[in-house]
């Protein structure tokens, strides 16, 4: 198959050999599971259980809210100990709403919805099942998958791309999944293809994973319109837009979706979850995650329940060998530092890395930008990171936007290549966050202005009403006085009348 080239990119050391040949191993039940209600992009789920409730494995814990959201299910059977705030797997280390579950050790399934046959089920049924089973993009983006399976009606789609590129160094969970559960992955792909109503599906795998490709080809042999394609090993090949460009030569419009050019991309792990949901009715309550890096005693791929504390995962992998190692969730390029190892595993966690300082390249000091423009040549989005950084340094955020800040996908190629080790990605994230905060503040400011105006009008209205009332009374009184003066007899008469009436 003819492939197209993408702009820029880098070739970081793969380091996949640490975990690539270690088969997926299950992780035991921890004493407590912490299941966050926000594990996806969008609105947090709203709990439907209460403290003290007994729940079965797979039972609904919290239900999605609004258009973009996803439900959360119990990873095992047990008792709900609390619904409160608990440290989230987030660089800030801030707490988020979390259901704490004490497993009862029975691991007893709740009643699951009946299996669906993708051959006979309608696209809507499949998409609904995927939404109902809480499936989100498992490559790290955590966008609710059902929304992306429902695009068929609104867009003219022609291709499903299943992303098995796994371009992040160290990570091997998708590789293992493709090798060990190729049949299930392919079956999930068929369901997704049905839901989208497209005939063609391509599984894209970086060529550094020949055995995964072989397994998928074997599993998919004889299926029409399904291809397994090896794509060049080059970061960021796994970026949705760049993968689509590599496969089709088509460029996704800025601020648009790949669906604009007729393509929908899903991750291989998502395909596996879809298989489980469609064929077995199981919700997304566990996932495969890579534990790797020089600081991990036994690097490997582990299947763990959502809500398992990261420290329990690390313990399962033999613990930390190096206390100075930096803990990262995800891959080294786009992963986030982990503020607290007590934070739980969530649907989007594909890796837990413990990187020694020598591996993460953090030892060297930052130097001034020498405008070497390496960042410009490696940027896969055609941006000029050095110019954006210079603007952000001076707080000229609007100028940075004019230079394309909002087109930056945050892949980190620029910072990886920067000889001066300028923290470009963090600068861009700072600017994006700042702009969002400003937007939010402006919105609030307008709201407050509206409230102030409304109150001022109300006060005015009240004052006016009072004044009018007073004026009226005054006028009445004056009129009465006048009447008394001009026609005292009449008034007296009237008074008499009143007395009589009384």
């Amino acid at each position, binding site marked *: 198959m003819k492939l197209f080239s993408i702009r820029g990119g880098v070739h970081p050391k793969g380091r996949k050999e640490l975990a690539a040949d270690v088969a997926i191993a299950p992780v035991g039940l921890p004493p407590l599971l912490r299941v966050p209600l926000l594990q996806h992009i969008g609105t947090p789920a709203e709990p439907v259980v209460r403290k003290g409730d007994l729940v079965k494995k797979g039972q609904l814990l919290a239900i999605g809210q609004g258009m973009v959201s996803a439900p959360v299910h119990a990873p095992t059977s047990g008792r709900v100990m609390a619904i409160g705030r608990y440290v989230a797997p987030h660089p800030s280390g801030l707490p988020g709403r979390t259901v704490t579950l004490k497993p009862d050790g029975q691991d007893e399934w709740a009643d699951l919805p009946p299996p669906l046959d993708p051959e006979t089920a309608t696209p809507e049924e499949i998409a609904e099942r995927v939404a109902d089973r809480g499936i989100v993009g498992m490559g790290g983006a955590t966008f609710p998958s059902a929304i992306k399976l429902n695009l068929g009606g609104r867009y003219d789609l022609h291709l499903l791309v299943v992303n098995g590129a796994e371009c992040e160094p160290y990570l091997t969970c998708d590789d293992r999944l493709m090798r060990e559960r190729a049949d299930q992955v392919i079956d999930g792909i068929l369901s997704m293809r049905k839901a989208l109503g497209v005939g063609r599906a391509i599984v894209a795998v970086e060529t550094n994973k020949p055995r995964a490709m072989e397994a998928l080809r074997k599993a998919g042999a004889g299926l029409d319109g399904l291809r397994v394609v090896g794509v060049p090993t080059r970061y960021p090949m796994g970026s949705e837009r760049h993968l689509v460009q590599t496969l089709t030569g088509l460029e996704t419009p800025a601020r648009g979706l790949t669906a604009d050019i007729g393509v929908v991309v899903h991750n291989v792990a998502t395909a596996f979850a879809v298989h489980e949901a469609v064929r077995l009715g199981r919700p997304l309550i566990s996932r495969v995650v890579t534990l790797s890096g020089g600081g991990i005693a036994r690097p490997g791929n582990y299947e763990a329940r959502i809500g398992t504390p990261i420290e329990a995962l690390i313990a399962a992998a033999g613990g930390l060998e190096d206390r100075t190692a930096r803990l990262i969730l995800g891959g080294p390029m786009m992963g986030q530092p982990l503020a607290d190892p007590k934070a739980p595993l969530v649907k989007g966690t594909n890796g837990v890395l413990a990187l020694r300082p020598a591996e993460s390249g953090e030892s060297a000091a930052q130097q001034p930008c020498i405008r070497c423009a390496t960042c410009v040549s490696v940027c896969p989005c055609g941006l000029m990171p050095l110019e954006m950084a210079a603007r952000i340094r001076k707080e000229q955020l609007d100028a940075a936007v004019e230079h394309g800040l909002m087109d930056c996908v945050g892949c980190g190629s620029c910072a990886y290549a920067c000889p001066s080790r*300028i923290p470009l990605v963090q600068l861009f994230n700072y600017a994006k966050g700042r702009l969002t905060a*400003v937007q939010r503040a402006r919105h609030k400011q307008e709201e*407050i202005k509206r409230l102030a105006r409304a109150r001022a009008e109300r006060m005015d209205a009240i004052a006016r009403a009072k004044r009018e009332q007073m004026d009226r009374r005054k006028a009445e009184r004056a009129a009465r006085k006048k009447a008394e003066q001009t026609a005292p007899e009449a008034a007296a008469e009237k008074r008499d009348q009143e007395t009589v009436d009384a």
Partner: protein
Amino acid sequence: MLTAIVSLTVIGLVLGAILGIAARLLKVEGDPLGGEIEALLPGTNCGQCGFPGCAAAARALAEGRAGVTLCPPGGRALVGDLAAKLGVEADLSAVEEDVPRIAFVNENLCVGCTRCFKRCDTDAVIGSAKQIHVIVQDACNGCGKCVEVCPTECISLRPQPVTLQTWHWPKPPLAA
């Protein structure tokens, strides 16, 4: 010599005439700037800028008597808007890191006197007589009027707490 004098005089006269005509034709009626600026300001007349009300502050801004960073409740967003409106460079880094400040009621001390409730320009205080008052975070702009009127000093202005939704990466330390 004569040619030079004559030509320079003519050039001067012509250019002067153009300027004069332009001044007439393009004359700006009144000063719309004050009004436009006032529309940007929060409009709660909190007085933290030192001017008596937002209208006065807007006039001061338009006349250049005040800097664009005068309004604490407006935060950085407002500084940016004002700077754009007035065509000046705003040194945003000089603005105090604007974690918006918000009023909080200490429920142990609140006696439910409703003074803050009456004083609030944005109806951000909920409560009635003899009941503990609560502040609606989204409606409070931290003007601090309620703090002044509270008889038990139970209201304080505190930075709005950061949540997972509002947190963003801090600016990294940069080499010179």
